[in-house]
Structure formats: C-alpha cells, structure tokens
C-alpha cells in the first residue's frame, strides 16, 4: 500500500442532548441522560415513551389527577451534591397505603454522565440523598429484624407495598404508573437502608438524611424549602449530643464532685473551740435573762463557724436566741434556733417530728476572741431541759454539692426525656412502635 493508510474515519460524535417530539401530542421531549434513558415521559400528555425506539413508541398513557404536586426541583435543574454536578432528569410519586390512608413521597432522579445516577426522596419536607448499594446487605431475622451493611446494623422500620402513581422525565429503567414493589426500610439515623423487590429483582439502596436547606443551596432554589412535618424514620435526633454522652458526662462530673467533697472534708480542720452544757429546771419563769459564755478563740484564717445545739427535748420545744460576739471588735452575728421534738403512736404506727439537734453555720468569721450570748425561751410548763452547745470552726459544707448535683441532673433529665419522646415519634410510624408503659 503505497498510498499509506487511509485517513481515520470520523470519531463518534459527542453525545448530545436530544430534542424530540411526543408522538401523541407533539410536545417537545428532551433526553438529558443521552443513551442511558430507557423510558421517557411526556410532561404534557403523560405518555410513557420507549426512549430506545427512534419513533418513541408509546408504552403507556396515564391520567394525572388535578391535585398532583409538581416537582419542588424542576426537571433540568442542575446542582452540586457532594462535589459532583447533577441534573434532575426524572420525578415520580410513589405511595403506600395503610389503614385506608395514602402516604405519598416523591423521588427525584439525578444524573451525571460520568458518575451515573443518584436519587433524592422527599416526604413531608424530609429529604434523603440516596445511592444504590454496591455491597450486599445481610438481613438478620428476629423479633425486630435487622440488616447489616458495611459492618453496621440497621433496625427494621417498615415493610410496605409501594406503587408508582405519577412519573415525568426520563429513567434508565422501564417505568410504569401502577407498578408495585415491596419496600423494606431499615434505619440507623441519619442513614436509611432500603430494599426494593419487584419482578424477581432485588435492589438495595442507602440514603442519608439531608436537611432541606442543603438541597435548596445545592440546587440554588428560590424561596424557602417546605418545613418538615413530624419526625422522619432516619432523621437524626436534634440534640447535638447523644443521651449516652450526656449521662457519661454527668457520671464523670458526679465522681469529680464526690472527690471534691472528700477532699473538702479532708482539709477542713473541724476544730472544736467551745463546748458547754446547760440546764433549764422546770418552773423557771419564761424569758429568763440571757447569759454569756466564756470567751473562746478562733484561730487561723477566716472560716465558717458551726454552732451545734443538742437537747433532750421530748414533746416539747426550746427556742434559743444566739449572738456570736467578737470581743475584739464588738461585731455580733444574731440568730435564733428552735429545737423541738415530738413523737407518739397512732393508727399508722409510731411517728416523730422534729429533731433534738440543731446545727447552724455562720460563714466567714475572722479569727479573734469571741463569746456567745444565749437567751433561751421555753414553754411556761416545761419539763427539765438540758442542752449542750458545741462550737467548731472550719467545717465542711456539703449543701452546695447537693445543689450542684441537682443542677447537673436537670439537663440530663431534659435530654433523656427529649430523646425518648423523639424516638417514640420516630418509631410510631414504623412496624415496631414503642409501646407506652403501663404506668403512663
């Protein structure tokens, strides 16, 4: 061959978006997924056409009801999802029926000529970003069946018979209105594993709950997305922290507080500085004059002072007007304490009220020389009452730890309660609702 090799034939043309016409009504039809389209639906006369046939043979025509909702993302819209450009090429409404009520959701088919197909589903404002599973999930049957996918367990949510009610756009499979499939959902929020079975074929897909704002941003849609209604099967719980984490933090802080308490108790000197016993004989007239104690010394740093009163009252009371007085400065801390104790028997058995002991803490008392002024008050017909006064300085106070624990526990209770009610709402739509317990 002296002439050399012939020139190369023209390379195959770039695949182009095809503009065609509906054989039924003449409306224009766009094929956006090139040769991938198997069926395409005329938007004006709702004929399902054979996209593989050059004459677009009519495969089915369906009646669209007047209340049919248009796609929230119009066909032909492009957006960027997880870093890849996708175009909306197909839209279908599917439904399940339960107790005579029809539940609708919408599916959007997305296409990229290199990455292939992806789906968005929308149910009452809740969106999922869906891809076909490459790995085969393993189903485990049991009281609540589960499916294992990529090493993670998904709980069975619902098995239902889904039927296609409305389609527009194009699909890489044979789509028909009225086609039914058994759909089984397994959830592991924020993911959803779905198994669809129809005519001998089983398809698994995995979806991820996607907030409507993300969809609106990805496709640059005008306005605001419809507000999601209720709790969706794989919607992540709204709390930013999990219930487990909150409990773990609570336990850790509790242990820390107990440690702090022990430390506080250990370092507190609890130093007794004054002890004295007194007696009130029966018949002592009411309002006996007050008296003062010996002077005692508070050493060390400024600290609290505990005054403990122990009495032998029984079915009687004593009221003590105390004043802690500084000999050095004359400053006085006044406080009154009532000690009363009553007990007896009735039809419910023995009972008691009050206590024979009383403790009061005076905070932040500077070191120095002090004495107590005590003014007892008793009932006119009182028995013999003896009482002991013990003064100690620098005692540990545990009350604040109690407040702290209650303060810590309240958010834990709140988060736990919110989580339980959220999960109850989620599972109420499933085949396995969380039953109300008997006491509720």
């Amino acid at each position, binding site marked *: *061959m002296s002439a050399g*090799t*012939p020139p*190369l*034939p023209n390379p*195959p043309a*770039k*695949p*182009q*978006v095809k503009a065609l016409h509906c054989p039924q009504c003449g409306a224009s039809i766009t094929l956006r*997924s*090139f*040769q*991938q389209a*198997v069926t395409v639906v005329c938007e004006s006369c709702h004929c399902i056409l054979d996209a*593989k046939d050059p004459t677009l043979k009519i495969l089915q025509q369906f009646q669209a009801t007047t209340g049919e909702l248009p796609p929230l993302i119009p066909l032909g819209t492009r957006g960027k999802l997880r870093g890849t*450009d996708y175009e909306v090429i197909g839209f279908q409404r599917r439904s399940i029926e339960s107790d005579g009520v029809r539940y609708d959701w919408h599916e959007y088919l997305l296409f*990229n*000529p*290199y*990455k*292939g*197909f992806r789906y968005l589903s929308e149910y009452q404002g809740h969106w999922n970003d869906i891809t*076909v599973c*490459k*790995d*085969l*999930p*393993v189903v485990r049957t049991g009281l609540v069946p589960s499916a*294992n*996918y990529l090493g993670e367990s998904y709980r069975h949510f619902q098995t239902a018979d889904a039927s296609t009610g409305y389609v527009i756009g194009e699909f*890489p*499979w*044979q789509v028909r209105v009225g086609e039914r499939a058994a759909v089984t959902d397994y959830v592991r929020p924020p993911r959803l594993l779905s198994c669809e079975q129809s005519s*001998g*074929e*089983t398809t698994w897909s995995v979806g991820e709950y996607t907030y409507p704002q993300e969809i609106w941003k990805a496709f640059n849609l005008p306005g605001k997305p419809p507000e999601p209604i209720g709790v969706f099967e794989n919607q992540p719980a709204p709390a930013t922290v999990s219930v487990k984490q909150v409990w773990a933090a609570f336990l850790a802080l509790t242990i820390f507080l107990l440690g702090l308490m022990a430390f506080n108790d250990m370092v507190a000197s609890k130093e007794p500085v004054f002890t004295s016993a007194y007696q009130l004989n029966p018949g002592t007239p009411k309002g006996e004059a007050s008296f003062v104690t010996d002077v005692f010394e508070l050493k060390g740093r400024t600290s609290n002072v505990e005054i403990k009163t122990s009495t032998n009252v029984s079915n009687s009371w004593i009221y003590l007007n105390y004043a802690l007085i500084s000999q050095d400065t004359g400053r006085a801390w006044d406080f009154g304490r009532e000690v009363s104790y009553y007990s007896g028997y009735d039809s419910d058995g023995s009972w008691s009220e009050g206590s024979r002991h009383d403790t009061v803490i005076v905070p932040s008392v500077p070191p120095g020389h002090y004495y107590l002024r005590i003014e007892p008050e008793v009932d006119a017909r009182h028995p013999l009452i003896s009482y002991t006064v013990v003064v100690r300085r620098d005692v540990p106070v545990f009350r604040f730890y109690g407040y702290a624990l209650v303060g810590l526990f309240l958010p834990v209770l709140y988060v736990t309660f919110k989580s339980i009610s959220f999960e109850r709402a989620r599972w109420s739509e499933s085949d396995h609702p969380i039953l109300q317990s008997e006491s509720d």
Partner: protein
Amino acid sequence: MTQPVSNCPNCGAKIVFQWSSSVQTVCTYCKSILVRTDVDLKKVGQVADLPPDSSPIQLNTEGIYHDKAFVVAGRILYQYEQGGWNEWHIVRNDGASAWLSDAQDEYAISFAIPGQTLPAALRVQVGQQYTWNNQTYTVTVITEAHYKGVEGELPFQYWDKTDVTFVDLRSPTGKFATLDYSDEQPALYLGEFVEFDDLKLKNLRQFEGWS
C-alpha cells in the same frame, strides 16, 4: 513490548495490536472482525454499526487500578430490557488482562477465573449462594442479554453471538461475581465494584453541556 503489526486482509489498513496476547481485533476502517492465526489475520465477520451508547469510557481510555496503570483495548456491548452495558477489555502495563464493566455508570473490575466447577445455567436461581476463593456470593439477578457488537482487541474470539445469559452475584463485602453462559463452557469472573473517581480515568469521552 514490541507491538505486532499487520495489515487488514479486507482493506489493507495497518492493524496494530496494543496487547500481544490479543486474539481478536476489529479493523478501525472497514469494521472487519479479524482473528489472529499462527501466520496472519483472518477475517471472520463484520461488525454492524454499534448502537449509540453514552458510556464515558472509550478505546484508549487510561486509568489506574490497585496502583497499576491500564488502558482500554476493546469492548463487548450488550443490551437487555433495562438498557445496555459495556464490558471493556482493559490491559495492564504488566500484560495482565481484565474487564471493566460499565452498566449505567456503575463500574466494576473483574478477572477471569478459570478452572472452577460452575453450575449449569438452568440450575441457577436468584438467592442461591456459591463460594469461590473462600468468598460466598449470592445470586442477585439473572439477565438475558443480547450481544450487540464488539470493538477493539479481545483476549478470545467473540463475534457470532446472539442471546447470552449472565448471572450476577454479590457479596456483603463489595465483591461481585459473574457467570457468563455465552459459551458451552460457562466462564466465571470475580471482581469488585469501583468508584469512578478512584480509577483516575483519562482520555474520557466528552458530553455536550458537561465539562
């Protein structure tokens, strides 16, 4: 590697084999299907125009799989009721041959596994399990496909086909198996699904309106 060069017995065009083990090729100019014999090339058939498809892969697309570069040398095109798919014959630069299948932009790479006991086509049912190379696979779909044509170099003779049965199996670990009943002796291919981005493909087809 010296590339064997000959001329098309039909039109005389130069035929260059990219891969020394190729058994069959298609003349780019006259679409004759050529089979290598010990001495020369023999025309065994003619490829009708391939139905248009929109795979982003084409002959001479290059990529990387498991750190080894490969080039697309040929393909077999099939159709079934839900569309079409390609089995791209890829050749690694170490000479090994494998298949990159592209079904609706879902990509998988597989290797022929000879010497296995394989079930007869009629016995296979969806849901059955088979174990090869210590991996259990579940039959997910049985496809009756129509052979639509070939392009480029293939490691075997493949041209006079019509309807072919394929059995697809999947494992829980992303592996898949295909039983190919296009010959009297079934053939087994084992492989795995791959992500488009991971293959780092170059020399891809362009699509109007997409960059």
